[in-house]
Structures are given as structure tokens and as C-alpha cells.
């Protein structure tokens, strides 16, 4: 088929050329649709435990989401005048975004530091990050009181440029685009669009560089959101360094998430993984654990400095103080040590447990900021506790994301099975570059070829 199209495109006449391109595009598009419909059928067994548990929840959740959209925010939700941000922002966004942080950390390691070792896990991580952002953006959408205005900060129905949230919103959007570009070569490989893949992968590095800058800012921006809640946050949690703390913790949160996700994927998607991936897997995990141990220690160190600097001894014997100690010692220092010993003695299982503990710690930390240490002075009866509907909707968002993740992994070369033609292209390109030398003039040559 492709051959025929190509013979059409040789046509000299400008108009015919344009027309034929249009026809070509339409054909591609129709082909894509047909493929998509064909591919929507599930691969593998249908009656798995995962499906049986998640499907009913997703269906119920979808129903709840629809009713939630029509009857105002208070419908089946406990957000209140005292707690304007409930589980959708306080959990889905506050926790989901740092968990998706693995994508920018690994992009940094692979593309910037050129540490090839981690290349095999990069695609899965970026895919995860991208999906996470798409779904947490939808969580924000659900939580907006005036949903039809969501485009205002983007289309410029007034730019609140002095707002941290404005910045976060924009960076979310841009980062989603950047991540999509980073992942897109995999889509092109799946659809066998060789030419497109070449173009897309030439954009990867740029997307990564800006993706990292954007991540730095919105990861810390999430923390900066609480800077004006000064008198509402418990003094043990309020510090001018919240943005830095959020940034550093997004590194180990993301890496831990990659470790846990890899452990599960290795069971579920083993058939999709390349030899190379499976062979290097342990080494990769140990390297990640090292990263976690270091960043957790930096975080712990920062926490101690801030604690001493803030003269916070007075609060430590109160219930909130003890809760603070649980968070800092139990969920930062202990996993830090576990990671350290895990990577030193190559104990993969210890590393896995440490990753789970770290993730739990990050959840606790973010929930502290949005719910527990936030308005800590209110009695329990006035505090925010999510309703079952809110929890079901949250689960629906997470499960749908997993379903899509599975769908993509089962089709696209996510875990290393890059098709031969793409590999060859890469090699070719490397050699070609070496020949080309440093001059721009020669560089132009390359593009005339295709």
C-alpha cells in the first residue's frame, strides 16, 4: 500500500501534490481508525482478578462523575467552606504529580546525563507520567466549581500572572505536551510511520530539556500553593522552603513509584519485555535505589535544618508534633536507611519494601498539607473526611489510567521491543552524524534524503 502512495507523491504539479498529500493523509487517518477499532479488543484473558475488581468500580465511578457534574460540587462530596480542597486536589493532584515525577528524573538521567543504563525503563515511565497528568488534570476539572470556565486562564479571559496556580496550570499543560512528544516515537513505531518517527524523535531532546525545567517549577509550585495559607498550616509544616521540599520529595517519590511499577509490570507484562530489559533489570533497580537513598537523605537533612532554624521544639510534644515525628522519622529516615542497605547488599526485595514505605510517606506528607496540618486547630467533627462517592471517583480515575496503560503497553513498544527498522535508523543516524562533522552546510544534506 505504502508503495502506491509514494508513487502518487512524486507527481510534479504543485496542486496535484497538495491534493495527493491530502488524500494520503485521509487514507492514513482512515487506516488509523480501522486499526484503532481493531485494537480496542482486549488482548489476553478477560476474566482476570484485576478486571473483575476494577470494572464495577469504574462503572459506578463513571455514573457518580456524571451526577457530580450536574448537581454542583456538594453532591456526594464533603468539601466545605473550611476545606475548599478535598480528595481530588488534596490527594489525586498533590500525590499523583510527585508520583509521576519519575518521568522527568529519568529523562534527566537518560537524555541529559546520557546514562544509557536506564534507557529501557524510560518509555514506560514517561507513558505513566503522561497518563497521570492527563488523569489528574481531569481530577482538577471535576473539582472546579465553574467547570465551563476552565479554559479562561489559557485563552486569556484575564491572565492572573501573579498567581502560583496560574503558573502551575500553564506548566501542567505545557508539560503534558512535552511528555506526549517524548513518548510519541513509540506511537509512530506502533503505526509504522517511519518518517514521522524520525521527525518526532528529533524533537525528543528539546521536549525533555523543557519538560525538566517545567517539572522543576510545577513540582515546587504545588508546594508554593500553600505559601499563602500561612496561618492555616501547622507551624511544623509551614516554612518558606515548602517549594524546595516539594521539589526534592518529588524526586524520590517518582523513583520509588518507578521501582514499584516495574515490580508489578515485570509480572504482568513479562511477555512484552525485551531480553535486554530483563537482563539489566536488577542493576537498574539498584541504581534507582541509590538515587532514592541520596535524595531522601537530602530531604531529611533539609527537614532537620528547617526544624532547628524554626526553633520548633515547643510543638514537638503536642499530638501534631508526634505526628510530625512519625512522618519525618518513620517515612523519611527509615526508608532512606532501607534503600541504603538495599542497594549496598543488592537486596531487591528490601528495596521494594522501601519504595512502598516511601510512597506511603509521600502520601502522608501531601495529605498533611491539604487536610491534616491544614486548619489543624479545628475539631475533628469539622475536619474534611472524604465521602465514599469521592473515594470511588478517585479510584475510578486511577483504575482507568491503569487500563489505558495496559492497553498501550500491550500494543506499543514500551518495554524495549523497539522494531528492527527503528533500531537501524538510530545506528545509521549515529554514523551519519559522525561523518557529517560539525558544519551546518553538511548537516543540511541529511534532510534532502527524505
Amino acid at each position, binding site marked *: 500500500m505504502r508503495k502506491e502512495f509514494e508513487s502518487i507523491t512524486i507527481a510534479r504539479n504543485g496542486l496535484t501534490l497538495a491534493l495527493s498529500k491530502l488524500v494520503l493523509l485521509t487514507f492514513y487517518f482512515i487506516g488509523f481508525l480501522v486499526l484503532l477499532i481493531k485494537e480496542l479488543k482486549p488482548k489476553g484473558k478477560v476474566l482476570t482478578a484485576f478486571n473483575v475488581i476494577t470494572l464495577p468500580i469504574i462503572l459506578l465511578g463513571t455514573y457518580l462523575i456524571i451526577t457530580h457534574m450536574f448537581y*454542583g460540587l456538594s453532591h456526594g462530596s464533603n468539601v466545605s467552606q473550611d476545606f475548599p480542597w478535598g480528595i481530588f486536589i488534596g490527594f489525586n493532584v498533590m500525590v499523583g504529580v510527585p508520583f509521576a515525577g519519575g518521568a522527568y528524573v529519568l529523562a534527566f538521567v537518560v537524555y541529559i546525563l546520557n546514562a544509557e543504563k536506564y534507557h529501557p525503563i524510560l518509555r514506560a515511565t514517561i507513558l505513566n507520567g503522561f497518563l497521570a497528568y492527563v488523569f489528574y488534570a481531569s481530577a482538577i476539572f471535576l473539582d*472546579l466549581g465553574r467547570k465551563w470556565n476552565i479554559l479562561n486562564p489559557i485563552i486569556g479571559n484575564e491572565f492572573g500572572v501573579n498567581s502560583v496556580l496560574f503558573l502551575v496550570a500553564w506548566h501542567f499543560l505545557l508539560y503534558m505536551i512535552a511528555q506526549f512528544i517524548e513518548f510519541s516515537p513509540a506511537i509512530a513505531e506502533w503505526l509504522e510511520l517511519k518518517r514521522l518517527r524520525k521527525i518526532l524523535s528529533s524533537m525528543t531532546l528539546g521536549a525533555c530539556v523543557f519538560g525538566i525545567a517545567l517539572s522543576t517549577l510545577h513540582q515546587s509550585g504545588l508546594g508554593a500553593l500553600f505559601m*499563602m495559607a500561612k496561618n492555616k498550616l501547622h507551624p511544623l509544616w509551614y516554612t518558606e522552603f515548602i517549594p524546595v521540599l516539594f521539589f526534592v520529595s518529588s524526586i524520590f517519590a517518582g523513583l520509588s513509584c518507578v521501582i514499584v511499577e516495574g515490580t508489578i509490570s515485570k509480572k504482568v507484562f513479562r511477555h512484552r519485555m525485551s531480553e535486554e530489559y530483563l537482563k539489566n533489570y536488577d542493576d537498574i533497580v539498584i541504581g534507582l535505589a541509590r538515587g532514592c537513598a541520596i535524595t531522601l537523605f537530602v530531604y531529611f537533612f533539609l527537614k532537620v535544618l528547617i526544624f532547628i532554624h524554626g526553633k520548633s521544639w515547643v510543638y514537638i510534644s503536642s499530638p501534631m508534633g508526634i505526628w510530625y515525628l512519625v512522618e519525618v522519622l518513620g517515612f523519611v529516615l527509615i526508608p532512606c536507611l532501607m534503600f541504603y542497605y538495599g542497594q549496598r547488599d543488592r537486596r531487591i526485595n528490601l528495596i521494594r519494601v522501601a519504595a512502598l514505605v516511601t510512597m506511603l510517606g509521600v502520601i502522608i506528607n501531601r495529605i498533611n498539607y491539604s487536610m491534616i496540618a491544614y486548619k489543624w486547630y479545628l475539631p475533628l467533627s469539622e475536619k474534611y473526611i472524604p465521602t465514599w462517592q469521592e473515594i470511588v471517583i478517585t479510584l475510578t480515575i486511577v483504575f482507568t489510567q491503569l487500563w489505558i496503560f495496559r492497553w498501550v503497553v500491550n500494543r506499543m513498544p514500551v518495554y524495549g521491543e523497539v522494531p528492527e527498522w527503528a533500531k537501524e535508523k538510530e545506528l545509521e543516524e549515529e554514523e551519519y552524524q559522525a561523518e557529517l562533522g560539525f558544519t551546518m552546510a553538511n548537516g543540511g544534506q541529511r534532510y534532502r534524503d527524505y
Partner: protein
Amino acid sequence: MKRREFLKVALSGLGLFASSAICSKTVFSSEIKAKTKEFFGVLVDTTRCIGCRTCEASCAESHSLPIPNIEDKSVFTKIRKPDEKTLTVVNRFLTEKGEIYVKIQCMHCNQPGCVAACLVKAMKKRKEGPVTWDENCMGCRYCMVSCPFDIPKFEYDEAFGRIMKCDMCYGRISSGKVPACVEVCPKEALTFGTRRDILNEAKKRIYQTPGLYVPYIYGENEVGGTAFLYISSYPFEKLNFQMDLGYTPYPEYTTGFLYSVPVILILWPAFLTGIHYLTKERKKEIER
């Protein structure tokens, strides 16, 4: 390194970068800084307030909200806060100096946290002094998180909810009238005027009636100054006023972060691209 490669990186990033520059460029603008032009405010003299709650009723009336039954004295048994249906409330405090009533509502800060929080500028500090809300709000409720006085409230029960808070009767002020509550107060506990005038008035009352007032004007410096000012015969902290807010305008807590944005957006990409090519060269050398 190939210049062409570098160009590609630069170009594909440029799109993203240009759009982020929108966010960063204007960060340095001083819009949130107080306007130099004089603006209005209201002086609340708690020694004159008798707790009749006519201000509550007239406020509700002029904002088309359910009108409270002001004969009902049972509301005083607990401390109330303004909410989405009552934009101002009067609280009673039993002290050794007798009953003291305190009217509360939005303080109309000189540099409001809610305005700095809003990502679509639905919250605006008007040049006349009031802080108002507009329909382009998207209901994110970040203003509720960021207000030091915990004032903005959201209509959760509506599918088309609004942020509700006192707007100092912006419509009335701009047509030359005084706010509804000020107009109906039978005891002149509320005084409307330019902030400079009412500040002077407050000082005058404190100095000319020795022993009546505590020597403090609440709102003069709190969070950088507010358009509502309070004077009282009883220590403010015992009347449920927040005394720990400090004198720093709330928006300033985020400026440090916002200032770092353009710096990071410019330096990071350059820095990262640099490292990328350095490590790439080194990798090549090792391979050779």
C-alpha cells in the same frame, strides 16, 4: 557538538518556552502593590455597636440573599463566620466590660491574598478600595485557601456556584453612595471614608477619649493594611481577632517563588543542554 542539533533542540523548545514566558514576564509587574491613589474604607467602632444586626439584614437585602431574622438573639450563642448566604455577621462576646459586639466581613486588604491567588483575575482590587469578584472565575477555590481572614465562600449547592464575599457594595460606592451596612447602622458604629480619613478618625477617638479604647487599630498594619479598620475597648485577641497574621502583605509570601520562575526557565534549559552535550562527547570518547 553539531550546531544543527543544537538548533533543533532550541527550536522545538522554543514553542514551549515562548508560552511559558507569558507566565514569567509580567511577574515583575507591581500590580499587586497598593495603589497610590486614595481609596475608601470603613471604620468599625466596636464600642458603639449594640448588636442589632440591621447591617446583616440590609447587606442581605442589597445582595439579594435570604434576609436573616434579626430579632433572633440565639445566634449569639456561638461564634459565627460569614458564609455564602451571609456576607457579614455580628458576634457577641461576654466580657467583664459588658457585652461587646463585633461585625465581621471581608477586610478588603490593601494587598489581598485572594487577588494574588486568582489565576483568572476574577478577584480584583478596585481603585475605590473594594475587592470584588467576577463571573470569569473558574471555581478553583484557591482564593479561599489564600485569604488570611478565611473570607471567600463558595456556593457548593449550585451547579453554577459563585464565590461569595462582601464587596463593600462596589456598585453603590461607584455611584457615590455609602455601603448598605454603613447607611443603616443606627449607632454610627460604622464610618465610611477614605482610608486616610478614617485612620485619622480612629486615632482621634483613641486619643480624645482616654481610657475608653485599647491603643491599637486593627487593620492598620495587619497583612500590610486593610480597608476595614477596627477600634475596641477590649483587647483584640480576646475578641477572636487574629493577632498572629503579621504585617507582611500575603502576596509577598509567594513572590520569592514567582521571581525564581523566569530565572529557572532561562537558565535550566541552557544548563541542561550543556550537560547533555558534554556527557555525550564523553560517552563517545569512552566508546572509542
